[in-house]
């Protein structure tokens, strides 16, 4: 009985706050905000918004960075999967996925910024030897007006996400048999994968792809670090307006939040049209029956690009680590003039509080999400109702609403809603806020494994006289330990990375490593940022290590239950 309520509970829990938050953003956008004397509806906020210098450009950059980021990340992931042949390199890249996913967006962005800046690490490595630069060249690379460095930063982080999602969905397609079949008809391996597996895979990863589009069109923290500035992306502009000392700008900011919703929706719609176009062209390509053209170049491109992205991310993080112990470090020195532990010693006494509340919030949100997810999935198994996969409008599809609706569009409204309900901003409220984002990811990570689980195990248990509950507790749960832990690790990582929900719902009074890192980032000291970014990145890593290590330890005598290698 309680199980039946799980899907309903999930949907209410996720959709309610978002809708309420959107309404509270919508009202001020049309001039209604009594606390600031706005008691009548008007279009003035919109007129002000459209009079903002550079608005069109902001919108264009948000829109295009969303589409370009997704296009590149998805292409790289699909090409890599197509060309992967199970070699040692392929396995290594797969294993790198989890730690890459655990690096918070902001930390990865800082790493990339230090790598590619004119005074950055790459430039230092070749100066003055190759370039003759004694001082950094005056080139606009980071924060370029076209948002290229922003897109690069996002691509680095979205590739591991899409790869993980694809790897989770692939086994149910039985790709090996499909490829074998195609190969027996004379297709080269990469072409065979692209023609026989990819068309079936895409519908399964469509939702994660949409989440990437939504995220990339509305991201704040990465855009602050790598994005253009004159004007910045729409989301950053909105944040600035919300924080403008002139409170009257709140109306315009709300209108901006609504516009952001529209921009994200437009990007999604454009992508949907692209899907149709690609499907049509792709069918022709498949029908033509080409068996080998492009095989080698496609395979090399897939591998090369994913290696480049992985390598960039890790070197970026390594350079942050170097910064965290650096003394004075002038261009064009490749290494600092001296090393010091003072940055770490200064930060250590302040670490315990934020680390403790980060762990508390992440654990609580993840456990709640796990319980709800298991309940919903188990209910699905027992009632035999399977939601249509990959479709947006199934009732549980609403689960992904928090991933599609831009945070900036509803969080400010949600704060007002919570204030009206009289909830005190404490850990519980922050946990609730994190749950909005943790739950979809946990569900996304766990559902495929759960649905794929061979029903004959449970049937066997039932036929031996076990009740459904016993079958669940003693057969299904233990056998699904590995995917459950992976889902938890993803949930922890998502929670640890949250900035806006923590800061807004916690009234700033609930410090986590991420809020600390970003408020110190406002100070721009790369050494301090290095310390905090490393702490921020290492916490989720612990989660992933446990997720990989625990099943191996527990099931040291049962190879089949240790999870994927």
């Amino acid at each position: 009985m309680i199980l039946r309520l799980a899907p309903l509970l999930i949907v209410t829990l996720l959709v309610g706050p978002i809708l309420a938050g959107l309404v509270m953003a919508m009202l001020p956008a049309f001039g209604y905000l009594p606390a600031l004397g706005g008691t009548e509806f008007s279009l003035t906020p919109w007129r002000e918004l459209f009079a903002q210098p550079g608005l069109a450009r902001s919108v264009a950059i948000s829109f295009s960075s969303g589409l370009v980021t997704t296009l590149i990340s998805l292409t790289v992931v699909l090409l890599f999967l197509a060309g992967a042949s199970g070699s040692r390199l392929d396995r290594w890249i797969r294993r790198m996925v989890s730690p890459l996913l655990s690096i918070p967006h902001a930390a990865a962005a800082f790493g990339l910024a230090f790598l590619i800046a004119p005074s950055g690490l790459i430039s230092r490595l070749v100066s003055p030897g190759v370039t003759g630069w004694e001082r950094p060249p005056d080139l606009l690379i980071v924060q370029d007006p076209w948002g290229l460095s922003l897109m690069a930063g996002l691509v680095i982080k979205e590739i591991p996400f899409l790869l993980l999602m694809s790897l989770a969905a692939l086994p149910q397609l039985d790709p090996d048999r499909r490829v074998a079949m195609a190969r027996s008809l004379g297709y080269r391996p990469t072409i065979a994968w692209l023609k026989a597996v990819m068309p079936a895979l895409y519908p399964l990863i469509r939702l994660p792809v949409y989440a990437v589009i939504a995220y990339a069109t509305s991201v704040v923290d990465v855009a602050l670090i790598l994005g253009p500035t004159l004007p910045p992306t729409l989301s950053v502009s909105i944040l600035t307006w919300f924080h403008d000392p002139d409170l009257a700008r709140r109306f315009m900011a709300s209108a901006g939040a609504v516009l952001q919703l529209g921009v994200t929706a437009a990007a999604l719609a454009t992508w949907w049209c692209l899907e149709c176009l690609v499907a049509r062209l792709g069918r022709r390509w498949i029908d033509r029956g080409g068996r080998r053209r492009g095989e080698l170049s496609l395979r090399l491109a897939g591998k090369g690009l994913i290696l480049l992205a992985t390598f960039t991310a890790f070197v970026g993080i390594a350079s942050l680590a170097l910064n965290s112990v650096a003394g004075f470090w002038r261009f064009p020195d490749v290494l600092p003039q001296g090393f010091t532990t003072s940055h770490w010693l200064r930060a250590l006494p302040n670490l315990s509080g934020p680390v403790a509340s980060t762990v508390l919030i992440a654990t609580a949100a993840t456990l709640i999400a796990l319980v709800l997810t298991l309940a919903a999935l188990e209910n699905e198994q027992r009632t035999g109702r399977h939601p249509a996969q990959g479709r947006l409008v199934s009732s549980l599809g609403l689960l992904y609403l928090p991933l599609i609706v831009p945070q900036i569009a509803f969080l400010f409204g949600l704060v007002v809603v919570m204030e009206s309900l009289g909830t005190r901003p404490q850990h519980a409220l922050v946990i609730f806020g994190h749950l909005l984002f943790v739950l979809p990811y946990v569900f996304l990570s766990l559902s495929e494994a759960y649905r794929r689980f061979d029903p004959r195990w449970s049937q066997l248990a039932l036929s031996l006289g076990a009740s459904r509950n016993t079958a669940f507790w003693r057969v299904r749960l233990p056998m699904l330990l590995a995917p459950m832990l992976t889902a938890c690790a993803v949930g922890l990582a998502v929670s640890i990375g949250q900035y806006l929900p923590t800061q807004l719902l916690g009234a700033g009074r609930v410090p986590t490593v991420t809020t600390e890192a970003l408020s110190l980032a406002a100070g721009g000291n790369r050494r301090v940022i290095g310390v905090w970014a490393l702490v921020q990145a290492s916490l989720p890593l612990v989660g992933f290590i446990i997720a990989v290590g625990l099943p191996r330890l527990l099931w040291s005598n049962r190879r089949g239950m240790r999870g994927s290698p």
Partner: protein
Amino acid sequence: MPIRAFSALPLLLATPLLLATPLHADPDPGDWESVLDEARGQTVYWYAWAGEERTNDYIQWTGRQVAEQFDIELVHVKIGDTAEAVSRVLAEKQAGNHERGNVDLIWVNGENFATMKANDLLFGPWSEQAPHYPLTDPENTPAVRYDWTIPVDGLELPWSNSQVVFYYDTALVDEHPRSMPELLDWARENPGDFTYARVPNFLGNAFITQALLELSDDTERFYAPVEEADFEAATAPLWDFLDELHPHLWRSGRAFPANSAELRRLMGDGEISIGLSFSTTEASGAIANFELPDSVRSYVHDDGMIGNMSFLAIPYNAQHKAGAMVVADYLLSPEAQAEKQDPVVWGSNTVLSLDTLSEEDRARFQDIDLGIATLAPDELGQVLGQPHPSWVDALEAAWQARHVRN
């Protein structure tokens, strides 16, 4: 069954208690003893910009002091932008939370203060009754009574004094400019070696305001609301100057650093060789922190530099007003102000008037070593007052309209 009945008992007991609690009366600043009494045991949430570790360390030190002396627990709520705290108070007002606000104390000035005052978001007047207030010599120090020309009216207590200074790398610059026109000439000869923070960051605003004041013959009009003057005519020299300057800036003026910290990092990386700061001791502090080379020194323009004071204010709905008042007053004490001025700790200038202090307290300030890149008080020159906030708003908007690409 008995168990269930039992579990409801605490709730039943609590209900009349909740109803019986009277609406909380605000503390009376005129009776400081009662304020001290009421403050005892309170937890004060201080929303303060946290971008600088030295600031955060100083606030922690304050926390230890007030815990010991007044039995107050001080919590530093770290924010990246003061407006976040203003947003919070506004959201509470919007939701009808007039009694139990989260924000007890804000570090504030200028535009944020003007906004909060205009929207009735502040508690007070209280600051003129604070025991340490007379030490600022308010009679002879207009900066204490007017925050960017807006009358303070006892709604905030002075805390910190800041003045804009330029800093330059003596290893790269032979002779530093002494005025805005000289800066332009210098930038022409050294393209890409200077930039300022992006408007509307407060340091960016300070730079264009400084240029405006230096380049105008008549500066009186900037201290009245902008509506009373001809904005176009008054600011024409500024825009001409910026149009000439920008092509010679870092990245040819196509991008600007976000804030003073990013500007400092550019200086540390050797991307620029002249920068500016709103803290006279920033360069010394950054050298000690390995962020700047020890060849960096500070300088000021001949006609004086923009300066202002920052304050501590209490929102109208703060839950711990008494505690906030006691903390604010402690921060104004000679002991706390001297600690703050020490560049090893933070290096933020005092708002106290040294003449009003006792011999012993004055010695605290005179013994401070200001650091190699810090100008002595008599080298800082004349302080130019901040124009009326409406000018800054108008300047921001005009700058953006001119320099943001469409």
